């Protein structure tokens, strides 16, 4: 199985404030079948940025061998990535990690996908696959402000979609948790990815439900060797048990790890 390869950029464009949509192609894409997994990108071959950047898989076309990633221009690496042109190649390691369990939701059941900011992208590929399996999908997508909203249309085509902004400039005002309550959205499974405060809020509210959370942590290797990305295990009394976000996660069932 190939694990590292060069993908060729087929398209890159800005789709919201500081948010880029990057589509690449290459045989590696064929292996990207599990939503919630991530790719570890080497931005370029310069020696000044040594570490790879973890970016979630947002969408894949296995036949056409293309993969789409959405990312926010944050620091040096993503800034440099955003300057790459069509036709340039990037060195990609992956797909890595354990994604969202599709079979946690039966055909005919309802899954609610709750995303916050740059945690939204992996939910898109998840939603597509759930829908393919006959699951009813609801999306609650939280953003800072109107200018940060992306992929509303894409999600709407798959199922009911609520957009929430913290400042109320678009969609509902407030937090994703408010909307789920206010709209009394009911669901069998919840899948979520986003900032830790959001994950914590969801974990404490829905601790007794079928809930899967995708975590973020600074990574070194991305493959489980360096112990950079560990988190504690709920209920571990020795304090030495751990899970690695890069290989055990990034997706964990509710109640497994300490957020």
């Amino acid at each position, binding site marked *: 199985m190939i694990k590292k390869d060069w993908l060729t950029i087929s398209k890159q464009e800005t789709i919201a404030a500081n948010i880029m949509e990057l589509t690449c192609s290459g045989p590696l894409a064929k292996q990207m079948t599990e939503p919630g997994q991530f790719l570890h990108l080497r931005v370029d071959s310069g020696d000044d940025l040594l570490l790879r950047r973890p970016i979630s898989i947002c969408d894949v076309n296995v036949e056409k061998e293309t993969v789409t990633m959405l990312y926010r221009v944050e620091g040096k690496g993503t800034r440099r990535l955003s300057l790459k042109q069509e036709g340039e190649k990037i060195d990609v390691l992956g797909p890595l990690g354990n994604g969202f369990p599709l079979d946690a939701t039966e055909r005919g059941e309802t899954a609610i996908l709750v995303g916050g900011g740059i945690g939204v992208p992996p939910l898109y590929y998840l939603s597509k696959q759930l829908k393919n399996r006959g699951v009813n999908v609801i999306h609650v997508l939280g953003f800072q402000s109107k200018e940060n909203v992306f992929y509303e249309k894409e999600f709407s085509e798959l199922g009911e979609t609520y957009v929430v902004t913290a400042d109320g400039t678009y969609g509902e005002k407030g937090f994703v948790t408010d909307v789920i309550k206010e709209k009394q959205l009911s669901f069998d499974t919840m899948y979520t990815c986003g900032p830790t405060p959001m994950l914590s809020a969801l974990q404490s509210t829905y601790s007794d439900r079928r809930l899967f959370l995708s975590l973020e*942590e600074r990574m070194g290797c991305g493959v489980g060797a360096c*112990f950079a990305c560990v988190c504690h295990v709920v209920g571990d009394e020795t*304090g030495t048990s751990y899970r690695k976000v890069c290989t055990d996660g990034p997706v964990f069932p509710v109640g497994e790890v300490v957020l």
Partner: protein
Amino acid sequence: MSRLKVELPGLSMRNPIMPASGCFGFGKEYANYFDLELLGAIAIKATTAEARFGNPTPRVAETTAGMLNAIGLQNPGLVGVMNKELPWLSQFNTPIVANVAGTEIADYVETTAKLSKVENVHAIELNISCPNVKQGGIAFGTIPHVAAELTREVKNVSDKPVYVKLSPNVADIIEIARAVEEAGADGLSMINTLLGMRIDLRKRKPILANGYGGLSGPAIKPVAIRMIHQVSQAVDIPIIGMGGVQTAEDVVEFMLAGASAVAVGTANFTDPFVCPTIIDELPGLLDELGVDKVTDLIGGSWKTCNVHL
């Protein structure tokens, strides 16, 4: 390919390349990427007497051409390593260097005594950069007589050759090197990381939860080369060189400086295939440089030239 062979105390290496301790776990992960029998040796993650979780996250931060880490010696402890990691590694015919850490001399002694009896452990690497609780947290590796004492005690109980891994955070690396040589070290590993820090401008606090961390990667290579050049001329025991190695050229530079073998750390994160790639490229580079055996390079920058420093 015997031109790549290197013989070191306890380590019969098919080539001079090994992954550096802490950058390769216990080998399992990278075994998914390539055959571990391609490697000259494997330095496994630091083992402490008890299992340790290590520091809070974030534990790594990027710096220009380097990275900081403050993993905090997370490891499954002596028992975990002996019962699980080493047996798994025994399937590979590649010598294992077991890196040992602790906060008191007794920890090191206990861990070494047991680990060095394991058949597929071929050498012990003493990580003396750890803070010594008895000395108020000052690292063992910065005080020559403390480093020597630790070396002596560990040598007393070790069934296998002991390599002492030197910290670069000292004014006089030769002094430490000589002290541990006299105390019986069979070899040296150098260098460990430089103590560094990065601050998040918006949060106004260190990026690493631990505050400080160890700087590794190509940024520190010139410091490593300098220290190896100094020490290799001052001691008679072999040196495993490391600090920023990424390419076959880097390996040659380390060996010319005085290293007898080379460890690759951070570069594994940039490219999981870096070790086999370097091993692959070495013969061609030797040809280009007109070098027959890789061992001919050792100390070449001072053995054959008349530059006085």
